[in-house]
């Protein structure tokens, strides 16, 4: 009887332990410390709100070592989330902000970004097409500098899909691809991409266009095997579960190129969506100089090479002097950028009402 009680206790304790283990994997609301490259007695810390490509230790370590600082990073997806995090933070909690370039004006207008000194940056080193002073400046003041760009288009496995057919965006709806498609789950660029197939340029999308986009998106959904984030869709492509990622691009396949050179991306004749990131200093930061120094490092030739080839995702550096190898440039299709830029549309952020309407459309299609 005593033994039975022990067994029962063990079972109960085990169940409790399992519950605790199951509950132990929550998300972190605080910036996570990058554990490499900084000494434990670093006198300074820098908190950066970033896309995941900035969490690569290879990118952060040189700055941390050179400045005896620990860079704490918190990655996010989507400006709305970042603004939500900032809303819930105290001024000074965050020093550096990596943001979609198209969102710089509204964030600067909201007073969240600190003006930068233009003379701190060599704008001649940036590609002309990504300088975009109309976005990065407000009333003549510079609020963010361009750092990286790429495309939401189609990524595919060239061993299983004809690259020439992929040049026609409408081919995505061909029965030949049924069950072979993964859709990247960021609704704005994907819906804008679907809009291109309908002949609607991203900046011209209105609520009136949404029914047509919804119908076309729903057709695409029936073709798809998966709707997922960057990692999920990458995994599906890499493991052969799907042959095409809609909304993918160089950020989906470049990091996998060494393992499987057949994984490629293309800009269809109808064009693609061009995303671009910028980096700035938050107005509430009490470490303006150090934060500015970090921004300078990120857009330097060395920082840009590391950022462009980040382990999270690759992308074109804004700095044309980035110290990339010829092989890395080849994977990024460096020499074809002029044509790609000409045939792509800047990532367009809808206003809040259209954004909400687009998310509603997306959830209706995806909910199943």
């Amino acid at each position: 009887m005593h033994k039975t009680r022990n067994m029962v206790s063990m079972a109960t304790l085990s169940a409790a332990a399992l519950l605790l283990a199951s509950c132990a994997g929550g998300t972190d609301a605080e910036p996570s410390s990058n554990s490499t490259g900084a000494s434990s007695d670093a006198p300074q810390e820098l908190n950066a709100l970033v896309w995941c490509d900035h969490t690569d230790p290879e990118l952060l370590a040189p700055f941390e070592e050179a400045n005896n600082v620990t860079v704490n990073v918190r990655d996010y997806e989507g400006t709305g989330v970042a603004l939500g995090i900032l809303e819930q933070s105290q001024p000074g909690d965050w020093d550096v902000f990596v943001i979609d370039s198209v969102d710089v004006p509204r964030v600067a207008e909201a007073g969240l970004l600190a003006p930068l000194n233009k003379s701190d940056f060599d704008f001649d080193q940036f590609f002309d097409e990504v300088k975009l002073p109309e976005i990065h400046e407000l009333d003549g003041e510079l609020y963010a500098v361009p750092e990286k760009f790429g495309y939401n288009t189609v990524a595919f496995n060239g061993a299983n899909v004809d690259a020439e057919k992929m040049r026609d965006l409408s081919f995505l709806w061909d029965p030949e691809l049924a069950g072979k498609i993964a859709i990247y789950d960021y609704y704005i660029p994907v819906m804008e991409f679907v809009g291109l197939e309908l002949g609607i340029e991203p900046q011209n999308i209105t609520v009136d266009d949404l029914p047509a986009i919804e119908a076309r998106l729903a057709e695409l959904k029936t073709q798809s095997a998966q709707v997922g984030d960057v990692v999920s869709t990458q995994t599906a492509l890499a493991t052969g579960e799907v042959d095409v990622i809609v909304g993918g691009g160089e950020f989906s396949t470049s990091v996998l190129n060494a393992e499987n050179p057949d994984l490629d991306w293309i800009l269809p004749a109808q064009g693609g969506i061009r995303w671009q990131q910028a980096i700035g200093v938050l107005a509430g930061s009490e470490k303006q100089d150090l934060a500015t120094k970090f921004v300078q490092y990120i857009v330097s030739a060395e920082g840009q090479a590391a950022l462009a080839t980040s382990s999270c995702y690759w992308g074109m550096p804004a700095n044309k002097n980035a110290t990339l190898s010829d092989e890395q440039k080849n994977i990024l299709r460096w020499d074809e950028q002029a044509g790609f830029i000409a045939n792509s549309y800047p990532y367009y952020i809808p206003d809040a009402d259209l954004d909400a309407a687009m998310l509603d459309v997306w959830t209706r299609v995806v909910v199943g």
Partner: protein
Amino acid sequence: MINRRSWQGWVLVGPALLVTLVLFAAPMVMVILTSLYRRTGGTTNRTLSLDNYLRLATDATIHQALLNSLEVVGLTVIFSTLVAYPLAYIIAFRVPAKWQALVLLLTVVPFWTSYVVRSYSWLLVLAKNGVINQTLQSWNLIGEPLTLANTRFATVLAFVHFFVMVSTLTIYASLRQIPRNLPLAARDLGASPFYVFARVTLPLSIPGVTVGAFLTFVLAIGDYITPQIVGGGNELLLPQLLMLQVSRRGDFPLAAAMALVLLVIVAAVYAVSAKNLTLERKR
């Protein structure tokens, strides 16, 4: 004397009470408050309103996500119990007592690996070129690979694998508390083995089944990772819809309201099953 004992009681309970207030009650109040805000014009409007709850009550997409959640979790609970009960029964009554601790330990071992790793492992097993399809194709049982990954089937299968041990442990605990002389007495009175199981063992083990089913329900209804990784996002469950509001739009108020709906559902299930939520044997 009573006052002194009362004071001692407060001292002993105080730390736990404080932790509960700080780590549960206060955040809960914040979640409730946040659910009454609104996300409008790209910012959070802190004027209190019931707009989010109105939307929850009227939005067909949210209803569909909730229905998906309940269906998936319902299937998980049913299949987990069906798998767990025979396993617990065998451990409790067929495995020699000296080996039971080891067998119980072995049932828990799979839980020592990361939850995310286990999810991705299932994805690799179920993939078109995964273990199952490759095996079936090598045996010439199928021509084209079956679509197993990125489906509701995959989500339920992974959930059952993850949570079956919870039910196994609780059912085992319940079975071990049944006095061995009860089934023996029933047999002595002429009952068949099946009749003994149906009329003696099963009814007396219902508390363990209920506890396991409840824990499985609680763990699965709020799970985001498994449907996202294994289910492939082909249908949205409520936690995925919740995460979509947070990760893509920063709509914390609507997400908070959805979280409270999940909490209310769990509370309702608790209320329904409360009388059996104990591993103590009833007299």
